[in-house]
């Protein structure tokens, strides 16, 4: 009885130390990663962003192609809580459209009489969720059919920019991720072959990588992207664009993988596996690759923003994805000239989304890279 009480008091202090010895690598990595505050915040941001993009139909209050003729280039609607000093919960004011008598320019004015409370899980337009089911539930919306809630304003056809941003996120983020997957497969295969076998194989793969890197990136992207015919199906163009991005991005990953392979090729456990008669394939996949997964994940995370920037830049120039596909780069085409920006600065909001996403991926990648070697310190 007494023994037990002493044990239970002494246990916590001992446990913590014991914890460190018995923790799995995953636990150690997570512990180091969670010390990097910016990386954790970025991770949350990206998770939320990915969910928004995945459930874009639901998060967006309107369909991405819904044209409102009487609501072109409307400014963002502000969200208020108090109406005439009284708390009514989140609501927006209605918007009235007029024309300037002299210049015939469209002017919008908030109408302080119409109070439109924001309804959550509001029933709006029908949509088809990836062909799985039909629904009309939106995360938020307003009841009035003639008024809208435009968190980020509307574009020159009266389409809700926020809704388009969510749908564009789906295309841009997935293009980045798929591009990285392509680059990863190429880089991992060639990088591991190069690093493991060395000799003339290593030499020729290195030469190939040098060749690809010696062609300047942006003109090469432009050249390849310009080769895609306009008339092709947007989905095919989308896949090809990600392939083009990956075609150049893989050399970077291959370098990381090759460096890691060179570093651990002569470790004892690899020698042991070889002496035990394991095949080359088994040594590479079972013994060597697992020891560098964390490095590879970090390198992959850092490669995503480049893909996203590449897609955005190409689409912006009109060489990548084209309307009706909605991506952030395509959305930014609307903000290409000075006139539209000075008239409607909110058209630049997809740019802000790109910057935030790229930064978040960079921070996340930095955090992962620091956490990649849990035994480092």
């Amino acid at each position, binding site marked *: 009885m007494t023994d037990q009480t002493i044990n239970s008091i002494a246990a916590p202090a001992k446990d913590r130390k014991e914890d460190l010895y018995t923790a799995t690598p995953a636990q150690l990595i997570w512990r180091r990663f969670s010390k990097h505050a910016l990386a954790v915040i970025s991770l949350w941001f990206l998770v939320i962003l990915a969910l928004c993009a995945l459930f874009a139909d639901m998060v967006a209050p309107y369909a991405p192609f819904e044209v409102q003729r009487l609501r072109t280039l409307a400014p963002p609607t502000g969200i208020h809580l108090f109406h005439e000093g009284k708390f009514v919960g989140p609501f927006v004011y209605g918007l009235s459209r007029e024309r300037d008598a002299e210049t015939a320019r469209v002017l919008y004015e908030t109408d302080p009489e119409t109070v439109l409370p924001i309804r959550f899980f509001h029933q709006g337009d029908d949509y088809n969720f990836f062909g799985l089911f039909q629904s009309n539930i939106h995360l938020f919306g307003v009841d009035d059919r003639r008024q809208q809630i435009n968190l980020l304003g509307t574009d020159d056809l009266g389409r809700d920019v926020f809704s388009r941003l969510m749908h564009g996120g789906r295309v841009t983020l997935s293009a980045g991720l798929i591009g990285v997957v392509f680059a990863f497969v190429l880089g991992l295969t060639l990088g591991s072959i190069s690093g493991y076998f060395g000799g003339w194989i290593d030499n020729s793969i290195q030469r190939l990588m040098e060749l690809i890197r010696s062609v*300047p990136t942006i003109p090469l992207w432009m050249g390849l992207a310009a080769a895609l*015919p306009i008339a092709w199906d947007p989905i095919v163009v989308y896949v090809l664009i990600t392939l083009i991005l990956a075609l150049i991005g893989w050399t970077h990953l291959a370098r990381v993988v090759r460096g890691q392979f060179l570093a651990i090729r002569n470790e004892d456990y690899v020698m042991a596996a070889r002496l035990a008669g394991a095949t080359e394939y088994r040594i590479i996949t079972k013994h060597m690759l697992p020891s560098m997964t964390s490095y590879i994940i970090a390198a992959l995370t850092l490669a995503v923003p480049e893909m996203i920037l590449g897609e955005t830049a190409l689409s912006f120039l009109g060489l990548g994805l084209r309307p009706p596909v909605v991506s952030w780069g395509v959305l930014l085409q609307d903000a*290409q000239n000075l006139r539209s920006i000075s008239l409607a600065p909110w058209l630049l909001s997809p740019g802000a989304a790109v910057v935030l996403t790229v930064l978040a991926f960079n921070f996340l990648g930095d955090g992962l890279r620091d956490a990649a070697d849990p035994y480092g310190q």
Partner: protein
Amino acid sequence: MLAFIGNRALLAIPTLIFISFISFVIIQLPPGDYVTAYAAQLRHAGEYISPLQEEMMRDQFGLNDPMIVQYWRWISDIVLRGDFGYSLEWNAPVSTLIWYRLMLTLAISSASLVLTWAIAIPVGVYSASRQYSFLDHLFTVFGFLGKGIPDFLLALILMWLAFAYLNMDVGGLFSPEYQNAPWSFAKLGNLLSHLWIPLVVLATGGAAGLIRVMRANMLDELGKPYVETAYAQGLSEARVVWTYPVRVALNPFISTVGWALPALFSGDVITAVVLNLPTTGPLLLQALKMQDMYLAGSFILILSVFTVVGTLISDILLAWFDPRIRNA
């Protein structure tokens, strides 16, 4: 050393041949050719040429020959006569179109490179020697922002701010009234008032990354015993920092200076399109869209040659500074 340079230069030759072929293949990739694009453009303007006429144009331009024949004609003219072919769209020799723009691009880019270094080196040194100070944090934020903002977006925002709040006329290199005017001080002033946006845009993008590199290099060096020794000798901080660790920390800069050369020519493509600069970028974009293959191909080829030469220079510089590489 001479053997090393010779070895490297020899390696560059197959690379160049490969690149020239790739650039030619890339511009041939799109279905259709210049005549198709030209006919489409004419139809757009309400005119019409018959298929027979199209065929005649193809014959005249030699577009019906096999690709390898066209490639050979193109590359042998370049190598033997320095003739880059004929721009079908502009109806002028490629070389007359290209060189002016290349020179302009080079001028803008090298000015921005100097600006980049002028910002990055002092800021990086300051950030490292006053680690975790307020300004260090500020520069860190700036560095990350510069990394995250695409160049063309920065150009757009700066253009908008200059236009909306400073009431400036931006875009292009000259105001319309100076476009064709002879050179004068007024024109020079006009040029400078347009030039700052591309310079700032290009310099911010580059400086953001370099500040981080410089800071990291300096932090590595500042803790070393030789720095302490220098302090112990009674030297002032400025003298210690700028005479010893900075010189070592600059080494990676020197070894990558060769890579700056191709970046100088190609890095500003998108910015130039946004800002409507008469540099290589917009012309290349237009040539690609119109399938003006000799023009586009020559551009990609010239840019690639600069990349290869740049890599060669940086290899040689690296070997110069590091005997381990030279003798390997």
